[in-house]
């Protein structure tokens, strides 16, 4: 399979490059628009960003505003912001750590957040995929029922239900893993949040895999494959898994994105020093440069993931590969 894909890709690499470039351009334009919307939205925010405002005299406030460039017109500020951002400068924090460059605050936290999110996504996807395969191949069995119940619970229940349950029973009562994140033991303290966060991808991948396989087993091409007299194992590895993986891959990335809100909750519950917990602090303390920066980072992650899905589709599925290449 891999050889065939590689061969095809080489033949169409220019079309593929063109496609990627086009998608990338659209993504950049969209991001610019989003940044604009976010910027405008936050400039409408009532009050001033300085938390000790009551104690300051009007002159002092004016001086502060001038210092941070807040006295300039909104549009000018926006373009200045974009210009600085392109040079890696997201402005400074007003309240959380006064005058701290946001890029420095956010940098290490992105790694933590992405790390936990990715780990949860991968753990959930693998477990969900296996469970889905099992449920579909053993339809109407106990496995199937169990998998269905897990899927319904995982999709329906918000992640903090699992998080609270795990931290109370496994963390607090059994004491197996830390309840609060500690920088000295990042791996062990990530276990509970990763498990709690992985429930949603696990459940949705399980559901998706199962229904995909059931429809593939029912498909005409499976009937033909069966009529070739191939043994069950070969049928599953050659036809079922291949076709299922393709479609599961394409739902997997957007699902990772949906972990965003979950990771926010996890970071708050387990006191993980990530993007989410900083976001919450920034919101609560009106530190709007930080809010803007993190909102934008979330949007970037979101859009890049969507871009990745689009490209993945083309690489992985021969049908779309041709269509994508020809236009």
């Amino acid at each position, binding site marked *: 399979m891999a050889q065939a894909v590689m061969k095809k890709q080489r033949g169409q690499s220019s079309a593929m490059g063109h496609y990627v470039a086009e998608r990338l351009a659209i993504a950049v334009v969209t991001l610019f*628009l989003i940044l604009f919307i976010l910027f405008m*939205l936050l400039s409408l925010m009532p009050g001033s960003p300085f938390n000790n405002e009551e104690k300051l005299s009007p002159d002092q406030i004016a001086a502060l505003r001038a210092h941070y460039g807040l006295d300039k017109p909104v549009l000018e500020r926006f373009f200045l912001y974009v210009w600085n951002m392109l040079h890696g400068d997201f402005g400074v924090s007003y309240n959380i750590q006064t005058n701290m460059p946001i890029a420095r605050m956010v940098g290490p936290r992105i790694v933590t957040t992405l790390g936990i999110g990715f780990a949860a996504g991968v753990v959930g996807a693998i477990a969900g995929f296996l469970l889905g395969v099992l449920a579909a191949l053993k339809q109407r069995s106990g496995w199937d029922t169990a998998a269905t119940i897990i899927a319904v619970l995982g999709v*329906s229940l*918000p992640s*903090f239900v699992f998080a609270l349950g795990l931290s109370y029973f496994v963390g607090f009562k059994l004491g197996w893993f830390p309840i609060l994140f500690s920088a000295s033991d990042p791996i062990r303290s990530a276990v509970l949040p990763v498990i709690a966060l992985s429930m949603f991808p696990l459940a949705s991948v399980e559901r998706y895999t199962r*229904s995909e396989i059931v429809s593939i087993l029912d498909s005409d091409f499976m009937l033909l494959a069966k009529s070739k007299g191939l043994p069950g194992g070969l049928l599953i590895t050659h036809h079922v898994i291949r076709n299922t993986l393709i479609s599961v891959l394409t739902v997997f990335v957007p699902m990772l994105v949906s972990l*965003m809100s979950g990771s926010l909750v996890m970071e708050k519950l387990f006191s993980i020093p990530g993007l989410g917990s900083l976001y919450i602090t920034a*919101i609560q303390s009106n530190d709007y440069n930080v809010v803007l920066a993190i909102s934008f980072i979330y949007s970037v992650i979101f859009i890049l993931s969507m871009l990745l899905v689009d490209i993945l589709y083309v690489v992985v599925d021969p049908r779309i590969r041709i269509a994508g290449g020809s236009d």
Partner: protein
Amino acid sequence: MNTSTKELTNEETLFSLASSDHSEADEREYVNYSYVRETLHRFLANRGAAISVVIIAVIVVMAIVCPMVSPYTFSDVNSRQTNLPPRIPGIEAFGIFDGTVGDVDAYTKAGCPDEYHFFGTDNLGRDIWVRVWTGTRISLTIAFVAVIIDVLIGVIYGLISGYFGGKIDILMQRFTEVLSSIPQLVIVTLMIVVMKPGLSNIVIALFITGWIDMSRIVRAQVLKFKNQEFALAARTLGASSWSIIFKEILPNALSQIVVTFMFSIPNAIFLEAFLAFVGLGVPAPIASLGTMINDGYKSAMVYPHMVVAPVLVLAVLMLGFNLFGDGLRDAIDPERA
């Protein structure tokens, strides 16, 4: 067969051409089913769906009735009766929910041995039972109002975009594309940050992001149906655009709309809880399930009852709506099930 063997003796009648009185044999073959009745039947035959109806009904009734009949209110602060564990009459005889911490009867200690707080009290001495059901009311109201508004906007947007097509469609689709490339989480959060938390603002933030999915689904349905024979026939007969939309297309898209509606509700409930958890919930003293979880989780290790009650109700509620949505979808589209 017994009667027929008797008749077999008379060969002459048997080998004559049959009279027309056998025509009813043909008629009985296929019974007419009503679509709605059949869908309802399939829905209720689904175990999960049947359970979900019970769950939702029970929770809605509790949310309406409990705060009315309880001697406590959701905002009554009682500084002497703080952090009391749950105590339920009847069940307390079995040694559970008997209001004791370790071996000490917390109720006697607080000077109220005759009182019963079914879910205990919080750190301000407020009755959690009443607060949970009042909170459920708030959560349900926010979710329902938000979802109904986003269904209205989404349906209208999708209908217009899908039916009129062309430039209008392209323009409208670009707009939703940009809007939907911002994570829902970011929009909702920023809206609340800008507008300040409050019941109506939360509703606004929820429907501002909620309608996009609905509009997409409606648009897809319109595109599917607008060129089918029945819609074309109506057009050739001179029906106006609006009458085609409302009389021909909308009824056919209805089942999809209802299913999407059902799935939007748990999503809205979750988003509201999420906002509350992030500290952007309804302002005190009003409580929603989310704000209660936010208040309770910090002391979860010491007083687990404070967070368990709202989390359980929230979990069961979301489970109920999801099961309901699943059941409805499978009942409407049995091919998928």
